[in-house]
């Protein structure tokens, strides 16, 4: 009886349907998605090196908290201003007369924000930022994944008397004048070098880690200067910056990193974080965020041409 059933189900002879199905699938994959087929074949036949599954290890939470406290950095949250000032999100930039509006392939970039560094210096302990001058940030939605998706202009010249109007820019966001609220930013698990899949941490441990700082909830809308980024996706951002600065492809999530690259990558600092903000009609992808990083030494000498911008989304 079992033999009968097996022969009915599996068939001892050539199974036409399976043959047609496999040939069709192979043709579809081979012609339509050659890269995916190659990757799938390598995975099926175990040719792709797989990391050994790691046993979960208990972590000394006290040591983690101490480290997080030691690495905590000051940050400034951009909040709606009650008094008039130079710093703002959206609107039109107050560029000095001799500064040209940044372009990309003949099209003007979208103005994101302008920051008065003197006002920043008065409010915070971000010591590596110049204490004078102004920063202007411009965005290009066609350059996601590239280092210059956000480009900065730094100028110590006085702003122009008249507001520069956008001519042919991709977008114009509504204007919001901003002030700065000093907070403490705590490194995320990525910056602490902890992997939740290999260490045994419960939600209470995460909460105690976040309680060290006083920044808003990571999922809230927040535009910030300095501190650590609020990552949407776990990513070695310092390494992504180093790769982009060197013109290398994005690091894959399983890539081993050379110590030299890791050391160089640690010098990147978050300069600016601009969030998707429904109030300003800003939406970068699916509620994404823009992060502008700079090496500390470049920031100290006012060289804001060497920034690297990253973008993450849900």
């Amino acid at each position, binding site marked *: *009886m079992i033999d009968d059933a097996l022969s009915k189900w599996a068939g001892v002879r050539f*199974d036409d*349907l399976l043959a047609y199905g496999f040939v069709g699938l192979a043709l579809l994959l081979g012609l339509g998605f050659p890269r995916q087929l190659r990757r799938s074949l390598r995975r099926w036949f175990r040719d792709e090196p797989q990391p050994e599954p790691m046993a979960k290890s208990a972590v000394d939470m006290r040591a983690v908290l101490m480290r997080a406290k030691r690495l905590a950095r000051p940050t400034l949250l951009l909040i709606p201003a009650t008094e008039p000032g130079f710093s703002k999100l959206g609107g039109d930039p107050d560029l000095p007369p001799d500064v040209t509006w940044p372009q990309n392939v003949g099209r003007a970039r979208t103005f994101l924000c302008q920051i008065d560094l003197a006002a920043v210096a008065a409010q915070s302990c971000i010591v590596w930022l110049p204490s004078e001058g102004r920063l202007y940030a411009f965005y290009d939605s066609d*350059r*996601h994944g590239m280092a210059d998706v956000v480009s900065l202009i730094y100028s110590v010249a006085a702003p122009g008397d008249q507001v520069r109007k956008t001519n042919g820019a991709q977008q114009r966001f509504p204007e919001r004048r901003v002030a700065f609220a000093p907070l403490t930013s705590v490194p995320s698990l*990525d910056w602490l070098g902890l992997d939740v899949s290999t260490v045994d941490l419960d939600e209470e441990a995460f909460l105690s880690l976040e309680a060290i700082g006083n920044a808003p909830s990571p999922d809230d809308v927040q535009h910030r200067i300095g501190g650590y980024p609020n990552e949407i996706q776990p990513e070695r951002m310092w390494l992504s910056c180093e790769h982009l600065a060197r013109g290398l492809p*994005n690091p894959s999530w399983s890539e081993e990193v050379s110590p030299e690259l890791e050391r160089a990558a640690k010098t990147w600092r978050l300069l600016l974080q601009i969030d998707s903000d429904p109030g300003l009609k800003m939406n970068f992808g699916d509620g994404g965020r823009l992060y502008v990083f700079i090496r500390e030494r470049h920031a100290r000498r006012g060289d804001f041409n060497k920034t690297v911008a990253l973008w993450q989304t*849900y």
Partner: protein
Amino acid sequence: MRPRVPGAVNRRCRLGSDTFERGGQPRSVLDSDAEAYEAMVRLHRETLARRAVEAQPKGLGAIAEPIPHVPDGPVDAIAAGLAHIFNGPREARKEVEQGYVIRGLVDGATAAADLEVGGSAANGVRKGYFKLGGSHAWRDARKWLGKIGFAEKFQHVHHALVPNRGWGKAVPDFIKNQPWNLKAMESSLDHVRIHSNSRQFGLPQFNSLGQYWHGTPTWWKAANASAAGHSVQAVVDGLFGRYEATPPDPQPQTK
């Protein structure tokens, strides 16, 4: 009046009923002959059904040749659906053997898609791919995805069907931040190319097909294939009549 035994056949009664003359209306007076006739018909039907059951093969063969029946409850409906899914490949093979190659291929692909959807659901249940307790905020949900092995440490995870912002903002986190709605991306660059223009390294944004292929979970693609296959089956059945590769068992002949 003689006492009536339920189910007993009155052999002396006139075969036939006056239901037709009454226009299908219930009787206004007791009619023992007609009731006896209906009892006889009921007994006859039960006998036929019992013989049909007895004629079916027993053991494993009984699974291969299931008794066709009309589902009349939720459990029956689920069982009938599962039987249909598991029987699909065999039916498709028979169709190909009988020369209906195109129909067999469509039915085979539909059956494979049905199996994939069912397999994904079973796999999800087995691996516990549904966050029940704790915070469902994205940051906590992403940590949980790493813990259960849904995504690697630095792997980007994409909201595939319900976006996090836009119209998805009206959807609660405990619904949208679940594995059914998420796709672990092969690379962060793929995630960039799903959402926006980027000319990085000469790779443009994915077109609609690319976004669908790279940006939706396997179960969703299988469900789409299954829906398309069933739609084609319904249209073909509507146009050319229903085709059964395995014809239903003939009604047992009464002596």
